[in-house]
């Protein structure tokens, strides 16, 4: 039972296809299926390649330009498509102290603390609501779901954060958007799918709820928790709006806000102005390097949890 829940094989996708030797090989077509036409294959491959290029080509330009020397950038007249004598100078300058280094550390700190906090609170709450018939779980559930119908509104939220004295503190970047009810509902739906026999037998053996959660429920739900953790982490890493309205101190700004200043207003990071004017460092390369720093963590992490993304969708709302 648990095994089935954990693995959740897609019956249609895998069932009718025989075991295959390599993950590179295509499974055999069923006999009733006509072989694909050359035109059809070409069209399909063309469209998919086009879609992938639409994603990858702009990113390629950004990465290559960030690695290019000032000479190359001057020669090409701006963005670089074909890599030539690559250099890490932009990254070295950015990460050797100064505005961007600080912003990277701020973003990492807020993301780590925020994600840990949000995931813990969400898992606890989801488990607390996962046993049918427990006292008050309906009331709490409705209170949580109320948030999906009526947004609190930007102005009153801003006034509240100000009143609580959170302005110019990092708590203002974490607390107001710490829990996503959607994520709690996804976790809860998953926890409720865990066979009650497992938890009941543990309870008979004298385990408390915290222990059951820690030793049975969480290990069985690792995949979905990983997805929710990634969602929270991406949320914190990508956030800039709260920082833009709650932080006045420019030295506290996270990376995304620094990127806004650089890209939208065509500025150069504080402290790098001299290096750009004097040396062989291009302002454009600096800008692109900040961008790469801002997208690298999510681009590296997300493929690891990719095969579980489906579990992060609200299973109750959209049935697979």
């Amino acid at each position, binding site marked *: 039972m648990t095994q089935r829940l954990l693995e959740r094989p897609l019956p249609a996708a895998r069932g009718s296809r025989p075991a295959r030797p390599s993950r590179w090989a295509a499974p055999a077509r069923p006999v*009733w299926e006509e072989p694909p036409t050359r035109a059809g294959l070409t069209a399909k491959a063309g469209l*998919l390649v086009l879609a992938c290029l639409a994603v990858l080509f702009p990113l390629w*330009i*950004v990465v290559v330009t960030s690695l290019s020397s000032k000479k190359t950038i001057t020669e090409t007249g701006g963005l670089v498509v074909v890599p030539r004598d690559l250099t890490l100078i932009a990254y070295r300058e950015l990460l050797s102290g100064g505005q961007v280094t600080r912003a990277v550390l701020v973003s990492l700190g807020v993301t780590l603390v925020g994600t840990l906090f949000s995931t813990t609170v969400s898992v606890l709450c989801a488990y607390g609501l996962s046993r049918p018939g427990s006292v008050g779980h309906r009331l*709490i559930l409705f209170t949580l779901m109320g948030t999906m119908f009526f947004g*609190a509104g930007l102005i009153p939220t801003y006034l509240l954060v100000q009143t609580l004295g959170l302005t110019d503190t990092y708590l203002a970047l974490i607390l107001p958007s*710490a829990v996503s009810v959607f994520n709690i509902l996804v976790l809860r739906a998953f926890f409720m799918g865990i066979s009650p026999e497992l938890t009941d037998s543990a309870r008979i053996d004298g385990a408390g709820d915290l222990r059951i959660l820690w030793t049975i429920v969480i290990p069985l739900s690792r995949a979905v928790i990983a997805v929710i953790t990634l969602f929270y982490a991406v949320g914190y890493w990508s956030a800039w709006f709260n920082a833009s309205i709650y932080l006045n101190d420019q030295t506290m700004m996270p990376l*995304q806000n620094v990127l806004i200043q650089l890209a939208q207003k065509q500025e150069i990071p504080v402290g790098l102005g001299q290096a750009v004017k004097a040396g062989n460092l291009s302002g454009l390369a600096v800008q692109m390097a900040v961008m790469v720093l801002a997208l690298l963590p999510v681009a590296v992490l997300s493929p690891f949890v990719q095969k579980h993304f489906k579990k992060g969708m609200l299973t109750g709302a959209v049935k697979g």
Partner: protein
Amino acid sequence: MKTHDTTDRRPRIPLGRRLRRDRALLLMTVPALVLVLVFHYVPVLGNVVAFQEYDPYVSTNGVTAIAESPWVGLAQFDRVLSDPSFWDAVENTLVFFLLQLVFFFPVPIALALLVHSLLRPRVRAFVQAVLYLPHFFSWVIVITVFQQVFGGAGIIAQTLRERGHEGFDLMTDPGTFKFLVTAEGIWKDAGWGVIVFLAALAAVDRSLYEAAAMDGADRWRRMWHVTLPALRPVIALLLVLRVGDALTVGFEQLLLQRDAVGPGAAEVLDTFVWWTGLRSQDFSYAAAAGLVKGLVGLVLVVSANKAAHLMGEQGVYRK
């Protein structure tokens, strides 16, 4: 969200005993509950400033400032509803929504059909990883990427200039801005939208295809008579949910580009509230505009869910 409705059928246990029994469970929900109460329900109450001429400087903190600010009844709502720039924002919001519906909505379905037809697991996983990637980028990154492609110093303008043509800058052109925003949305999230449709496609009973093939249906007729009917409930549901959320169109995305193209092309309801409230410091006016949006949004969500229930689907909540 399947709850087994056992509450009513259980023998009555005294509340005190049930409280003691579920003490740990209740305690676990406290942190999340407190956060939601403080950062959602308290601000909902804070919307009373929409009925005031709120002045933050009349007192030292927000709560006493509300107590001491004068009440003006519905005057702020009168101002909002007779403000032409509010109605411009409404118009822009609806145009953005319709463009998304027409151009964005079908893309994930088409992509899902393409990805589903990929049989080699490695190739498929690679394509999926590429398509999902932009979803994890912040709007700041997405817009900066578009700047590098379609902006005045972007790769297209740069190449055109090299060849002796005139460059262009789509990022600051109000005329094409609505399409640019739609394209940015597609680039960021169309790939992510594939997931639900892939799940639905994987759940189709393969024997239906075989039976259809036995009856002489070619691949197009199989797609029309087997695949699309299997996707129909998901399509209908997503459509309904999107309509319920119609007034929320790309707040961060538009806020970031508002300066470049000007409010005429970029102002939507959310950015209107931001501008009037946080920039012009007209808190009560902005709160009133936000409240109007919230109330219309509530009606839309509830009716959209009603529609979902009528179609025999679950919405965000159950019947």
